[in-house]
Each structure stands twice: as C-alpha cells, then as structure tokens.
C-alpha cells in the first residue's frame, strides 16, 4: 500500500481537521459525533438538507456543504455508513424550524442508520423527510436484491435540493425535487483499477492490467462484467447504452450530463469520455443542456469513470443555475 497517510485509523479524523481549517469561511466541523456543517447555519425558516455516507468518496459529501447545497454532511469510517448519533446531532444542528431533508444513498447500512436517526429526530419534534437515491443501472432492481445503488444522481440531487431550500420552499417541495431527480436520473460506472481501503491495506479486488470491470460500485462492488480493456469510445458506448435504455428518454428531452472521475483518472480522460457520451446522447435526440465533468464522487484512488444522465425541466434548470458556494462546487456566489 502506497498512500499519503500517517496511520490508517487517523485518516478520517485528520482529513476532517484539515477541512475545518481550509474551508473555515464556509463550514465548521463538529467532532464526536462527526459532522460538517455550514458556517452560517442553522438558517431560520429554511429546510435543512443533510447527506452522509462512508468516507473515501470526497468531495462527496463534505465538499458540498455550504450556501445553496448541503447544510450538513456526516462522514462515516472509510466506506462504512455513519452512525445514527451523527445524523441526529447534524439534524438538530441545522434545523431552522422548517424541517430537515435526509438524502440517503441506497446501501443497506446507510438506510438503516439514517432511518434510526430520523426516528430519533422525529421523537424530538423535528420534521424529517428522507429520500433514497438509487440510480445505478448496473444493479438489477428487484425484490430479491437490496435494489440499485445510489451514485451520481446523489451529487446532482444535493445541488438541486440545496437551491430549492435556499428559496425557502417547504420540506415536502424540497423532498419532491429529490424524488424527481431520483426518477429522472440514471448512472453507470466502470473501473480500470481497484482501490485500497487504508485499514485493509490491500486492494479491494484484483483487476489484471489488461482487464476492466463494467458496472463497478463506488466501494469496489463487483459490476456486470469483467472484460479485456477497450478504447474510451467503446467503453462510453457500454456505459451509455444501459443508461439510455433504462429510462425511456425521448428525442427532444433536455438532460444534464455528469461525467465523474472515480479518483485515479485524470480530467483529460474524463473529457474523452464526455466527448463520446455527448455524441451518443445527441444521436438519440437528447439535448445536453448542462454538464458537470470532474471527480466529484470518488472511490479513493480507483481509476475509472461513471456517467450520469439527468432529465431536466425548467424548474430543475433554474435550481441548477442558482448560486452555490461550497468547497467543491461554486458558481454565481
């Protein structure tokens, strides 16, 4: 294992300590229980928007805390869901009296920990709604599995919901935006290399030099198929086909295209993926009206990419363009 760390058990704590200093103008970090919170929160009369999950996916979620996006983020151990006391304390801390939305990625641990936190917060009189994102088309969505995993749409939903909350929309209206993003968005990813969880010390899975994994999860969960490495254009086709055929996108639909880096892939390669993905979307008659390209939801040092398509309507476009001021996403403010 070759990593820029001191001790595996201190990785999350040391990163949080640094985030607190580096972005002191935007956020504060609370320890024991750990959560990152907007510096100017709670904001009276505004719905609080919270997310959280295992660490190792930075900038998601802590890098999205700030004006126009998240009010708080709860980081767990690396690739391990945070615990209910973190979400409960964060919920109480950001509650401005208008209720709190929990944006939860569909993983068994995340769901159960957030559910318990929501129950505890409701028992203390706080209005809590939770929306679960599950956009990964690589996983079969059936009664016999835990369902599709929550991936790229989560980042986009956090931006849209944050903007809606900033406009002082009600808890139900902000949650509706999240449900809309969940219904309109689909993603799929692939890996060129594995990642190494610091406390595990060795790669999560073995992927030979000439092989790739199509449909990988952001914790290194197995994908749909392992096959010999292909060109960027061919890989993009393999990711775009299941996405486009999963939702009946219609010619003329306006979409946001998000090409994400998993941590070990340089931006120049992400643009090569974006080039082909844009061409395929256009061929299907889709209008790519907004784009996001970069490593926003990573999987430690994994090399690879994921593509997310989100169908947009006029309201969602306005929310996307609204000002945002966070460590990782910042425009118009």
């Amino acid at each position, binding site marked *: 294992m070759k990593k820029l760390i001191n001790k595996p058990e201190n990785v999350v704590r040391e990163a949080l300590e640094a985030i607190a200093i580096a972005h002191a103008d935007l956020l504060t970090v609370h320890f024991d229980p750990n959560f990152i919170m907007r510096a100017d929160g709670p904001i009276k009369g505004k719905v609080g928007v919270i997310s959280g999950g*295992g660490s190792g996916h930075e900038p998601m979620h802590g890098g999205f805390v700030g004006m126009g996006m998240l009010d708080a983020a709860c980081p767990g151990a690396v690739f*391990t869901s945070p*615990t209910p*006391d973190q979400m409960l304390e964060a919920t109480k801390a950001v509650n401005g009296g208008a209720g709190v939305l929990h944006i939860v990625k569909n993983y068994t*641990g995340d769901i159960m*920990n957030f559910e318990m936190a929501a129950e505890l917060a409701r028992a203390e009189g706080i209005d809590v709604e939770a929306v679960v994102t599950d956009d990964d088309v690589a996983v*079969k969505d059936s009664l016999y599995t835990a369902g599709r995993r929550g991936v790229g749409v989560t980042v986009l939903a956090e931006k849209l919901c944050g903007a809606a909350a900033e406009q002082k929309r009600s808890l139900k209206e902000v949650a509706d935006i999240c449900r809309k993003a969940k219904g309109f968005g689909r993603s799929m990813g692939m890996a060129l290399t594995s990642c190494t*969880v610091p406390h595990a010390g060795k790669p999560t899975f073995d992927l030979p030099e000439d092989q790739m994994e199509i449909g990988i999860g952001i914790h290194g969960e*197995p994908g749909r198929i392992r096959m010999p490495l292909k060109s960027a254009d061919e890989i993009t086709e393999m990711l775009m086909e299941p996405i486009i055929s999963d939702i009946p996108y219609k010619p003329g639909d306006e979409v946001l295209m998000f090409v994400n880096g998993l941590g070990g892939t340089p931006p120049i390669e992400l643009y090569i993926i974006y080039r082909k993905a844009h061409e395929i979307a256009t061929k299907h008659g889709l209008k790519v009206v907004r784009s996001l390209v970069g490593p926003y939801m990573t999987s430690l040092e994994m090399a690879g990419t994921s593509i997310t398509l989100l169908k947009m309507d006029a309201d969602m476009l306005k929310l996307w363009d609204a000002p945002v001021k966070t460590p990782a996403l910042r425009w118009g403010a």
Partner: protein
Amino acid sequence: MPVYRDDVVAWIKAVGEMIAENSSYLTELDSAIGDADHGANMERGFKAVLNKLPEISDKDIGTIFKTVGMTLLSTVGGAGGPLYGTWFLQAGMKTAGKMELTLADWTEALEASLSGVVMRGKAELGDKTMVDALTPAVNALKQAIQENQPINAALELSADSAKKGMEGTIPLVARKGRASYLGERSAGHQDPGATSTYLMLKVAAETWKKSI
C-alpha cells in the same frame, strides 16, 4: 436457577473477547460476499462496550442491555450497527428493572430482539442474514419451555439451532444487504451476520452453564 445480572455482565464481556478473537474470521467471511468490514466494525463496537461495562455493571439488566445497544449503534456503523444495536435495545426494553432472568424472560427478550431486527432490516427467513440464525434459536427456546427443559439444556439447544441456521445460509442466495448484488454468486458462502449471531448465543450457553 436464573441468570443473574453478574452472569449477563460476564456474557457481554465474553462476547467482546470472542469478537476480538474472531475479528479476522468474520471479516474473511464478509470479504467473500460483502465489503470485508464485519469483523473490524464489530470489534470496534464491542471494544467500546467493554470500556463502558465497568460503569454500568451495577445497574439492572435492562439498563445494561440498553447501554450496550446505544454503544453499538454509535460505534459500529454499516448494517451491523443498527441491527445489533436494535437487538440489545429491544432486549433491554423487555428486561427493564430486572436483576435476574428466568428462561422465559430470556426467551421473551430474544424474541423481541428478533422482531426488532426483522423490522429494522426487513429480512425474512432464508434471505441469508442473521435472521436465519436468530429465528431457530428463539424457536428452540420456546420449545424447550414447553417441554419443561432445564435452562442449561435450553440454552444449548438454542445455540445448536443457531449453528444449524448459520450453516444453512451457505447454499442460500442473498436477498438482502450488499451480498445480494452478487445474486447467484453469493451461494456457497456462509453469512457473516448469521455467524456472529451464532457465536454470541454459543458464548451465552457456555458462560451461563458455569454459573447456573
């Protein structure tokens, strides 16, 4: 003879030691079909429990169980945290104020744990989860009560049933949790959650046999 408060404390201590000893084994089982953290997460949780134990070991059994549950809930994370947290919180509610447990008390507590775990995780029997070990253990206790078995024999029967349930998860295809992403590929592996559940019940039978 009932199970006294000090026996309960001894059991929790023994569970902590057993989890530490089996941490790599549980993680190994988890790496085959999950995300390779069950051992490490449980070890972190029970380490925190062992640290807390001295300050609660003079309280009633309900308070002890509830404190164990809250500690696991805030330290384990993943799916194991809420599930084992719920297990002990539910058992704590059934045993509130008690300084000793009859076989019927323990059965009632474990049954409450089972329904709590089922409600939290939404798993059914045969989904390849800890429910597959806990359900037969509870059923064995209930049957032992009907047959007027002594408490020692009942505890052993429940551990044996949990073991059979755990072994029964090997051929199953996972329908819940991260293992379910593997579909058919999850068959042929023993479920780590069912394994930690069996180990805890085995330790209960062994620890309490000595004192009752």
